[in-house]
């Protein structure tokens, strides 16, 4: 009896001690979850979100976050080699995906409920008990280096252009390197660096585990229990320097032998989906350049009317294409930028197309969006956004993003707010956040010196067509081809393509 009393007392004290420790632990140090149970659904979707991204890379160790998370997603555990994992995943058609951005990373997976237990037992160990094997490290680091040295600069010009824009816009800023890092920094990374980064950042307070689908009711508790074995703590939110506004048009040109010129341009903006004004600006930018849709004004002007390329778009904030043409989720950032993407076009039309895009931007900023387009585009967004969250993963992703941006449900918020916005609010947002005089412009093309000369000289850039064109288009062309850009010679840097991503920032100009 006495023994039992002591035992109970001990349990009570231990419980109180644990309770005390738990209470003194800050909520920001603890694991978070987002749950969306759908009883009876045969699938279960996971999104394990980490509030850490490439902006958390230590100086001179750029690419470390990418390498560390990639080793978790594509490496072995303490008990299983990656070969064994592949062989166990295969019959289940299972995977553990990874999306990585500046301040956020997410591991994704989807599995049939038949295989939930086995799948979870594997991914749990991949994330909580990584093997950090030398052979995985070498394989994944080599892939990362190959991507930087060869693939990005040589095999994917559209992405290359977007990355150069990022380098130009964020020089000296934690966003200012591609997620994969630089050749120099990645070469220097060691397995010890990877393990240290994991220990520092893969901690409870950085993690939100998201679950949706037909998982058993007790599954979240089990997952919480498992992930609570990670150390408490969190990585403080980055204090970012002010975004640097370009001085006029600041060009970075990557030179390579190519029959086509790719262009991306933009500038930092001081709002994000968190802000009330976002919804008004969203209508404006959807009108100006909705991603891969005919409603895009730039698409109509450059592709439909003139047949210059495959498409031309604009974005109010950082955009990554997810399923089909819809925006991907979990790419939240504190700081955002407006951008225009001109897909590759014949080198002979590069100067004309650049002028055309900038002229149309000027018109947008000065005149706002035409009244007849306002209602059309607003209705479009109200209906199109109903298609955004169709899959389990998308549903969960938007739920998590809603929380990040401070909404209960961002897409529902859009349905509430968009109908109340006026044309004047849209045009006011355009004037407040957009400009046509100060942009970073990234170009991949050949014969960069010649482009520089005609840019500085503001030489007219006439365009010719295979067939006749309506007079109104020809009249408009006359305006485009002499639209003054007033480019300062000092604002044009051109560099051989192969020199990019060797070190942080834009390489020194020739």
């Amino acid at each position, binding site marked *: 009896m006495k023994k039992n009393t002591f035992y109970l007392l001990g349990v009570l004290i231990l419980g109180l001690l644990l309770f005390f420790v738990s209470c003194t632990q800050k909520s920001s140090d603890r694991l978070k979850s987002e749950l969306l149970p*759908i009883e*009876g659904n*045969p*699938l279960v979707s996971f999104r394990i979100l980490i509030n850490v991204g490439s902006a958390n890379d230590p100086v001179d160790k750029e690419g470390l976050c990418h390498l560390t998370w990639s080793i978790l997603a594509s490496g072995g555990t303490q008990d299983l080699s990656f*070969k064994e994992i*592949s*062989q166990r*995943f295969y*019959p*289940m*058609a299972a995977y553990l995906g990874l999306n990585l951005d500046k301040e956020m990373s997410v591991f994704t997976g*989807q599995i*049939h409920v038949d295989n939930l237990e086995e799948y979870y037992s594997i991914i749990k160990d991949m994330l909580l008990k990584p093997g950090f094997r030398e*052979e995985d490290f070498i394989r994944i680091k080599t892939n990362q280096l190959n991507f930087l040295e060869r*693939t990005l600069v*040589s*095999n*994917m010009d*559209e992405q290359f252009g977007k990355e150069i824009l990022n380098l130009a816009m964020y020089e000296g800023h934690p966003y200012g390197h591609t997620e994969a890092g630089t050749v120099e920094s990645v070469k220097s990374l060691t397995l010890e660096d990877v393990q240290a980064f994991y220990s520092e950042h893969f901690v409870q307070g950085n993690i939100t585990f998201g679950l949706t689908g037909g998982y058993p009711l007790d599954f979240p508790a089990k997952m919480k229990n498992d992930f609570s074995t990670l150390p408490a703590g969190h990585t403080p939110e980055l204090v970012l320097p002010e975004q640097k506004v370009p001085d006029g048009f600041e060009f970075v040109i990557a030179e*390579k*032998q*190519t*029959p*086509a010129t790719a262009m991306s341009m933009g500038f930092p903006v001081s709002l994000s989906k968190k802000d009330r004004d976002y919804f008004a600006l969203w209508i404006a930018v959807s009108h100006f350049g909705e991603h*891969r*849709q*005919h409603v895009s004004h730039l698409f109509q002007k450059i*592709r439909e*009317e003139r*047949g*210059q*390329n*495959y498409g031309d778009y604009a974005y109010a904030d950082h955009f990554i294409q997810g399923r089909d*043409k*819809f925006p991907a989720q979990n790419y939240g950032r504190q700081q955002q930028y407006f951008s225009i993407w001109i897909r*590759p*076009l*014949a080198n002979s039309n590069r100067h004309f197309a650049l002028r055309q895009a900038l002229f149309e931007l000027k018109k947008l900023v000065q005149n706002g969006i035409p009244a007849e387009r306002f209602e*059309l585009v607003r*209705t*479009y*967004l109200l*209906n*199109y956004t*109903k*298609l*955004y*969250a*169709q*899959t*389990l993963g998308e*549903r969960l992703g938007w739920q998590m993003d809603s929380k990040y941006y401070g909404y209960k*449900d961002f*897409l*529902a918020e859009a349905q509430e707010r968009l109908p109340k916005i006026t044309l004047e609010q849209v045009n006011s947002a355009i004037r407040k956040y957009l400009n046509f005089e100060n942009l970073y412009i990234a170009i991949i093309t050949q014969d960069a010196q010649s482009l520089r000369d005609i840019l500085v000289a503001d030489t007219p850039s006439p365009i010719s*067509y*295979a*067939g*006749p064109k309506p007079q109104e288009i020809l009249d408009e062309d006359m305006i485009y081809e002499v639209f003054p850009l007033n480019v300062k010679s000092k604002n044009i840097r051109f560099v051989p*393509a192969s020199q990019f991503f060797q070190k942080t920032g834009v390489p020194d100009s020739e």
Partner: protein
Amino acid sequence: MSKFISSALCLTLLLSIPAALHSAKIFPYDFKIEELENGLKIVSIPLDNPHIISFYTIVRSGSRNEIESGKSGFAHFFEHMMFKGTKDVPREDYDDFLTLLGAGTNGYTTDDFTCYFVVFAGQENLESVVKTEADRFINLYYDEEMIKSEAPVIEGEYYASVSNPSRRIYETLRNTAFDLHSYKHTTLGYLEDILDMPNQFEYSQLYQKRFYAPDNSILLVAGDFDHDQLMDYVRKYYGPWEKSNYTLVTPEEKTQTKQKRAHYDWPSPTLPRLAIGFHGPAFSDENIDMAAMDLLAAVAFSSSSALYQKLVIEEQKCQSFFTSFSDHRDPFMLIFNTVLKQEKDLPDIEEEIFKELERLKEEPVDVETLAKVKSNLKYSFANSLGTTDGIAGSLAYYINLTGDPNTVNKVFDLYEKITPEDIQEMTRKYFMTTNSTVVTLAEGKER
């Protein structure tokens, strides 16, 4: 109108996904098939999800149909012209219609078919979608100037991927492997044919007359609608579409009797690539040849296979390694693709692939591995059915091949029946060195 709650939008759809793997058929949804007098086939899959409808039009014409010289890429070009509107609904009005609808819409062209889709919310919009889509398929209008204006867009699309060596090695492989069949070129076509597209107004009209007809097309509709209501609209608006009665005869490829080889020098830094293609069977949901090849690809060359593990994970000579044994209406190719880390390993990797094929001719795959592969195929298919679009898209792929939506179930039935001995027999039948084409790509001088 009830308050929109995004989380409600998909809830019922997600609830409605049957446990595909536990039903008798791999495609677990009921569908109805009807055919109009003009030959237009309609496959409808009413689902109990609220709001969303996927409306697909499948034209059974792709780059396979480009049998005349100088016309490569035309099926894809014509897909672009299909967005030019009609006299009643000009392009601008058509664009505005889709914009107001907030539809997800596009088209894509493959070797064998061209697919157009409109994904939208709201049953109340079904009639206007059927009416507008029928109008553009029956009354498409464009003039020579519009052809000349659109052709450079194709050139732009060519440029969009010009820096991608994967595209180049694929083009080279097909061009080398085929002599006669229109599978010799990709859907994008040869650059010289793309540059000549502005001059193809007359041919475009011939192409439309031959292939854009109800007896060569299938409507596939999935989502929240009533079947009878759909059919009323379809009869009303698609009834006047006139048959083509055109029969395509594709050139028959002669049997290849000796190995072919080609190399492409990539003008800038790149990882070296190797593609090996073997002439293979046409798709069939009755003969086991192609189904056996699908299983072989998974057993011996997928990410769980011994060869993949050796080349990618253990020796790390390859960055990626995958097969592309895609289904085609006519005999196509069984392709092995790999991206290497060093050019010096190209001969070794080629040898490894041939050596593995020789081993598979002698040793049947083990039953346990085969069971895992069959499991993977089922779960992969089940994972693709999460949206109306996923359901329609999955079915569209199989419908194109035979015109019959039951094909998807027949193929998975075939998978179940295939034995290790079947796979061994098919390996011997198709993987002969004389039947192969080997293409390499590596950094080299400019060309």
